[in-house]
């Protein structure tokens, strides 16, 4: 039966080609929209996760409660062992240790005395021997001059501070900060590159160094201010809350006990997450709804224009039920073929959009926009199925509605419509 219907579809192009194309185009658009929506709505959330909050963040209780002050005296210690345990217990998560610090950067004159100084906010992240954090924080796009640290003791500083302190690449600078124990800590760095963020707060005085250097500098051996955890895909609130439960404090109020904070509980993120879910749901719902109407209408039209054919078929002895069944069967085939084709093409476009993205800089001609903002699609498991809702369901429902006419009308009347 299916083979028969399929052959019919293949041989009668007018019966098959246009509906399949319409379904495919509609499904393709749905798939692409879904991936794009996922991409740009998650983008802000994921960017915050990658830059500062992680999907989850492990700190000590004391650090968590004073997090605005970057209190490294409450750093997590015995990090290596902790990371090992985390990797063992949650093998699918990626963990990233970071140290945030504040301090003063001092550039020497020829004799090693202070020539210029600047306030800095810094981060120690893994930069040497791994590209993971560079990719994660999209630092490559922010690199303004020079290169990333390749050797110990190299540092990246924001371009604005670099100019203010009248530095050159390769210059030696000294960081003065306070150690985990509250001492004044001094450490020499060589400036190997500069960064541009396009965000005033960061451009005024941000430094990035390899975490091992920062550990040396601040006497934080095997310690880290915070450990960020990343899920394999997007932020997953349910999973994050489960993890939070697993790390629930023992109630002792010990300032050095570990706590895990889901990013939704990090300041400001709750709003963004809620907003994105809300907006995303509404847009995709309306679109799928509209697309369903279009494809339903297409199915309806497709069915209606074949009333004549059905008249003939009924006249030569086919039962109404059989005729109706074949109409619906055809619609299922058209829907499936169209949806598969549409999903495939949609995924190709979505993939291209995911890999290459759309550069905002090209869209708005604004020279002050130094930081490239690229809009990317993101293919999620849902992207693979979403197209089938309008694609199959609507086409079939359209055909079913159109087919009701077969029952309602007389054979002779249907036959008359044959052209």
């Amino acid at each position: 039966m299916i083979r028969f219907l399929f052959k019919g579809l293949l041989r009668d192009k007018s019966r098959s080609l246009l509906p399949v194309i319409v379904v495919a185009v509609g499904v393709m658009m749905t798939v692409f929209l879904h991936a794009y929506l996922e991409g740009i709505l998650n983008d802000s959330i994921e960017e915050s996760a990658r830059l500062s909050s992680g999907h989850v963040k492990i700190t000590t209780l004391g650090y968590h409660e004073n997090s605005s002050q970057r209190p490294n005296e409450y750093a997590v210690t015995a990090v290596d062992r902790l990371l090992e345990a985390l990797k063992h217990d949650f093998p699918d998560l990626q963990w990233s240790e970071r140290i945030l610090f504040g301090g003063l950067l001092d550039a020497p004159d020829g004799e090693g005395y202070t020539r210029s100084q600047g306030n800095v906010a810094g981060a120690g992240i893994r930069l040497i021997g791994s590209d993971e954090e560079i990719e994660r924080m999209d630092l490559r796009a922010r690199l303004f001059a020079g290169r990333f640290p390749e050797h110990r003791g190299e540092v990246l500083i924001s371009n604005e501070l670099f100019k203010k302190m009248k530095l050159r690449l390769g210059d030696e600078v000294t960081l003065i900060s306070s150690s985990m124990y509250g001492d004044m800590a001094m450490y020499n760095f060589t400036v190997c590159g500069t960064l541009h963020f396009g965000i005033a707060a960061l451009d005024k005085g941000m430094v990035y160094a390899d975490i091992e250097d920062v550990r040396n500098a601040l006497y934080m051996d095997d310690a880290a201010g915070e450990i960020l955890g990343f899920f394999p895909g997007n932020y997953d609130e349910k999973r994050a809350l489960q993890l939070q439960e697993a790390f629930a404090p023992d109630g002792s109020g010990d300032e050095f006990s570990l706590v895990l904070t889901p990013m939704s509980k990090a300041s400001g993120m709750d709003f963004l997450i809620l907003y994105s879910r809300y907006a995303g749901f509404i847009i995709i719902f309306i679109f799928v709804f509209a697309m369903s109407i279009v494809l339903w209408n297409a199915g309806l039209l497709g069915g209606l224009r074949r009333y004549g054919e059905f008249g003939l078929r009924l006249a030569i002895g086919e039962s109404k039920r059989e005729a109706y069944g074949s109409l619906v069967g055809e619609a299922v085939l058209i829907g499936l073929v169209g949806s598969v084709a549409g999903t495939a093409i949609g995924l190709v476009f979505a993939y291209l959009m995911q890999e290459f993205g759309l550069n905002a800089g090209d869209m708005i001609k604004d020279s002050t926009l130094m930081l490239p903002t690229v809009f990317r699609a993101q293919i999620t498991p849902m992207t693979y199925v979403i197209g089938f809702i309008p694609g199959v369901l609507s086409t079939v429902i359209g055909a079913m509605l159109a087919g009701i006419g077969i029952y309602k009308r007389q054979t002779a009347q249907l036959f008359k419509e044959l052209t």
Partner: protein
Amino acid sequence: MLLFKTALQSLIGNGLKTWLTVFVLSLAIVMIIIMQGILHGWSRQAIDDAQRWELADGQYWCGGYDPWDPFSLDSATASIPEPLARQVEQGLLEPVLITQATVYPEGRMQGVMLRGIRPGQQLLEIPTAVLRGDSMGPVPVVVGAFMARQLKVKLNDEMILRWRDKNGAFEAVDIRIAGVFKTAVPSIDNGVLWIGLENLQAMTMRQGEANILVKSEAAEVIEVEGWTFKTVDKLMEATLLLVKTKSAGTSVFYVIFLLLAMLAIFDTQTLAIFRRQREIGTMVALGMTRGQVVKHFTIEGSLYALLAIVVGAVWGTPLIWYLSAVGISFPMEAAEFGVPMADVMYAAVTPGLVLGTVLFVFVVTAIVSYLPARKIATMNPTEAIRGKIL
């Protein structure tokens, strides 16, 4: 006119199918208007909030005032020079004095920015009236909701404030949280403590001095040495750019929604032409030129857009009105969000936006209607009557 009438008749005669297409098209139009409206509303709200809470009609900055460098504050304050001082007296300018300080809620030490403002000011929405207080008891201060959470304090909580005056001498008093306000402007909330201007001037021994003068609309901009006037546009530059950047990404949605509607039109048109070959043949046989027939079908297609505009206006107007007047609310503490955003978002829909969208959709619909109709021109009327062409 005749073309228009017959086109409209054949369209409406098609019943449900026509109305479905019309509805989808109206959906696309209304959605595009709403999405643009929300984004437009967002950026307008960002400016609006900033103006109501922080910028008013712009600010004069004293000397090397740099909001990002707290250590520059001490050197970026001065007595208010004469022409400006008169405007201050008239309430046309609101002086703000800023200094670094330390608070000790429950013995915890935390650095803050102390901002002095006149309790009687009407220019900004910060609830400064409670800063008057009485001369006895702790000095009243107001904080934003986010700051209150950071400090872990509630209304009427007391704590010690310590600062250094102009000469570097330490000074400390008890302060009382006399007000907590909720704002979508983080820069006047996060890390900031608001206090009476005269209090702060006396406390820091900076009588008559300020770092910033906030200008009201009624005040004229005066060039004064040592003070630079910054317009709202200038001060909002970064935020607006961010909004603009984020908006750019959503234009893809408009395209997709429009494509959706066009798919509906194209599908309907193609099928209509396919099904009505005999009609087309008859029309040509009766003496209409092919061009006229193409025109007929193009107009018929474009009529979808007209009907969609009417239908969209019927159901879209109340919806858009609701989104503009009542807005979409979010049950959250919005000030925590790094970008200014209120917890009620309003769509800002202008006549220009509606007209532009409607016109654009109409033109695109006409083009999409024309494309399948072009085929008619190649038809042989006799064969068309027999329905043998496509």
